[in-house]
């Protein structure tokens, strides 16, 4: 393709992005001007809504959020052209993205048009869902969509590679896009998790709910993909990397389909419409068929080698296998209910225990793998010894499983051990060599170990108590004393609120917390603002329930362990991903 053509292509991309900006700007304007003749504005905004939330109301429901996703897709296409203009792979990447964009736009226009209007002008809108009136949930959806569309760009690069071959330049760009997508998607999941913990008031951060699981699928595939770039750079299992790149993108579409079609029983239900579901499913089918057909016709020509037994690359391949096993578990556990419902008409739900009992051992294996990788000397053993190791580890796991001794506490000790070994190694390296080799990798893996530790500790030690308290009364629970000091009524712009003040005595330290219950003026929706006091070790968490006739209130008092550690380790992980992506050389 000549340079002239490619320049013209870049201009078209810019034109597309510009028109979409105008289109979104127009809808924003309707929100800011309270133009309730637009059905979408009417359903998601009201006069009383603060301006900040009038802006975020844009992406609070299906139509607008899909439009935002399209804007982001077009935007990332533009960024792609801006940063990597003139690259050999650009025309094919642009063509692939244009193909995706085209289908998304058709979907938007024919099934989810946000510009439909009423014939009459309503006085006021029905307000934005109070649950979404939270700063965290204002940023969560855009970040999630950005993660999805970045993976579309990564996908387009992989497709281009199948046509023109994977050279060094393409690998550099791929590494950058894969890193950016991975970071964004991780950030989105973290935001959703924090929101669930602080705003939803269920006392947890992850529920193994279908809507949460389907976001985890592309993340797992993306994690495997990012790691596979490390070995495929050396032409090892190149086709495997390509396959992962394709799967990650396909799983992002699958996630959109599951969430937006409402096919699964989820406690997070979004507007569902069968026609949208059918369209998205066919979209998934088209992309899956086209890309996999291309993959199988081209993969023969992708030069691939197999890694040497017990080399670093070999461990990376194993890591990929384990990640995919986790993916398979989540995939089956999430989609199995759909299969039984469609074929047997039987609705099922799969308990969180399914996921935690299966995934915990695999995560432990994963941690063992990447920890062993940090000690190259351990790998210089012969095959017989290695087999012996594998067998004995498998035996220990099976014995723990069958004896039903608390596998979780075994896991906890194991992880604490690994954590201290890795920390010690990093420290020794820092002191003796004044720097850490591939610091982001060490930090990233350390934070994963820390995260796992916090999650298991949380699972193991957290307790909660449901109780009724009158103002002035106190209750003792798990070495702490909770006292309900007072209950006040306050008013805000678009809601009234009941504020309960608690004090918690734990040993010699006393802390105060407020738990709120809000009644929104439009529609009378009630939400709770959970009261939380956080320390590094544990959180005290109080949800205000209902008022009883004798003046007492029901409360749920929980002590959650390790929550701060979960957030801290996730942020460290994000930091290492970002640093690993933007640093100039290598992986």
């Amino acid at each position, binding site marked *: 393709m000549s340079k002239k053509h490619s320049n013209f292509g870049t201009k078209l991309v810019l034109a597309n992005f510009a028109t979409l900006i105008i289109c979104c700007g127009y809808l924003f304007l309707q929100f800011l001007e309270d133009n309730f003749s637009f059905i979408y504005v*009417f*359903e*998601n905004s009201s006069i009383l809504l603060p301006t900040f939330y009038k802006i975020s109301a844009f992406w*609070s429901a*299906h139509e607008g959020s899909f439009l935002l996703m399209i804007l982001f897709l077009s935007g990332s296409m533009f960024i792609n052209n801006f940063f990597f203009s003139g690259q050999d792979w650009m025309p094919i990447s642009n063509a692939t993205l244009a193909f995706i964009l085209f289908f998304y736009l058709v979907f938007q226009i024919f099934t989810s048009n946000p510009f439909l209007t009423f014939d*009459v*002008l*309503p*006085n*006021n809108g*029905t*307000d934005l*869902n109070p649950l979404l009136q939270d700063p965290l949930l204002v940023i969560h959806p855009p970040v999630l969509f950005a993660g999805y569309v970045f993976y579309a760009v990564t996908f387009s690069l992989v497709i281009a590679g199948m046509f023109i071959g994977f050279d060094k330049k393409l690998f550099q760009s791929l590494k950058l896009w894969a890193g950016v997508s991975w970071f964004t998607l991780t950030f989105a999941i973290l935001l959703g998790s924090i929101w669930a913990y602080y705003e*939803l*008031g*269920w006392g947890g951060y992850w529920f193994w709910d279908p809507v949460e699981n389907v976001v985890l699928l592309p993340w797992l595939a993306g994690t495997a993909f990012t790691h596979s770039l490390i070995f495929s750079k050396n032409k090892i299992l190149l086709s495997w990397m390509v396959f992962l790149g394709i799967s990650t993108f396909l799983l992002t579409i699958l996630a959109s389909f599951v969430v937006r079609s409402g096919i699964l*029983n*989820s*406690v*997070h*239900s*979004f*507007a569902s419409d069968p026609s949208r579901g059918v369209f998205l499913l066919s979209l998934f089918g088209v992309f899956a068929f086209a890309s996999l057909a291309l993959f199988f016709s081209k993969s023969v020509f992708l030069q691939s080698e*197999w890694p*040497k*037994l017990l080399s670093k690359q070999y461990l990376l*391949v194993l890591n990929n*296998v384990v990640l995919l*096993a986790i993916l*398979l*578990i989540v995939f*089956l*556990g999430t989609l*199995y209910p759909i299969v039984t419902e469609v074929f047997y008409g*039987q*609705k*099922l*739900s*799969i*308990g969180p*225990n*399914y996921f935690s*009992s*299966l995934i915990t051992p695999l995560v432990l294996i994963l941690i063992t793998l990447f920890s062993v990788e940090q000690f190259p000397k351990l790998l210089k053993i012969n095959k017989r010894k290695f087999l012996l190791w594998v067998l004995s580890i498998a035996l220990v796991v099976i014995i723990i499983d069958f004896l039903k001794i608390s596998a979780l506490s075994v896991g906890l000790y194991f992880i604490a051990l690994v954590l201290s070994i890795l920390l010690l190694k990093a420290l020794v390296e820092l002191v003796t060599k004044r720097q850490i080799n591939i610091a982001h990798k060490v930090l990233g893996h350390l934070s994963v170990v820390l995260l796992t530790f916090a999650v298991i500790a949380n699972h193991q030690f957290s307790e909660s108590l*449901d*109780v*009724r308290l009158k103002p002035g009364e106190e209750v003792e629970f798990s070495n702490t004393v909770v006292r309900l000091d007072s209950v006040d009524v306050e008013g805000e712009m678009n809601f009234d609120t009941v504020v309960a003040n608690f004090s918690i005595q734990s040993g010699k330290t006393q802390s105060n917390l407020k738990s709120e219950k809000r009644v929104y003026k*439009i*529609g009378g*929706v*009630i*939400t*709770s603002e959970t009261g939380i006091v956080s320390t590094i070790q544990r959180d005290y968490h109080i*949800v205000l*329930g*209902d008022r*009883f*006739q004798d003046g007492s209130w*029901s409360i*749920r008092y929980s002590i959650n362990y390790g929550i701060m550690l979960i957030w801290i380790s996730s942020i460290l992980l994000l930091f290492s991903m970002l640093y690993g992506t933007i640093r100039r050389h290598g992986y």
Partner: protein
Amino acid sequence: MIRKNRLNKIYLIIFFLLSVGLITFFILRALEKNIDLYLTPSEVKAADFNQFDDFKLGGMVKVGSLQKLEGLEISFIVTDFQSEMTVIYEGVLPNLFKENSGVVATGSLNPEQNQFIATEILAKHDENYMPVKIEVQN
């Protein structure tokens, strides 16, 4: 060299098959243990259920049915607009719980009193949460 490469390939394939086999075994075992049926009140009435089996009851909370009993005990009626079922729950209701909106209760049947004893209550949250009433400006 070629032979060694082929040997590695065989090792990998064997490892792969073994792990797939193991994983499938564990998945099936875990699925068997952790499946809860998800039923509406009509389906519960239509079928004959063992009282010891846990399942999930889904439907809408009937308007005006929420009652506060002794202590933290609460009862309400779940309806699918064809059949109804009384649910007893002891504990704090989730903040999204309200009448005429979706609820998922986990627990088991008490056959003598035809009640559902819930151990966990989850309220659904969604984006369109209100009956739409359009005030028309003429």
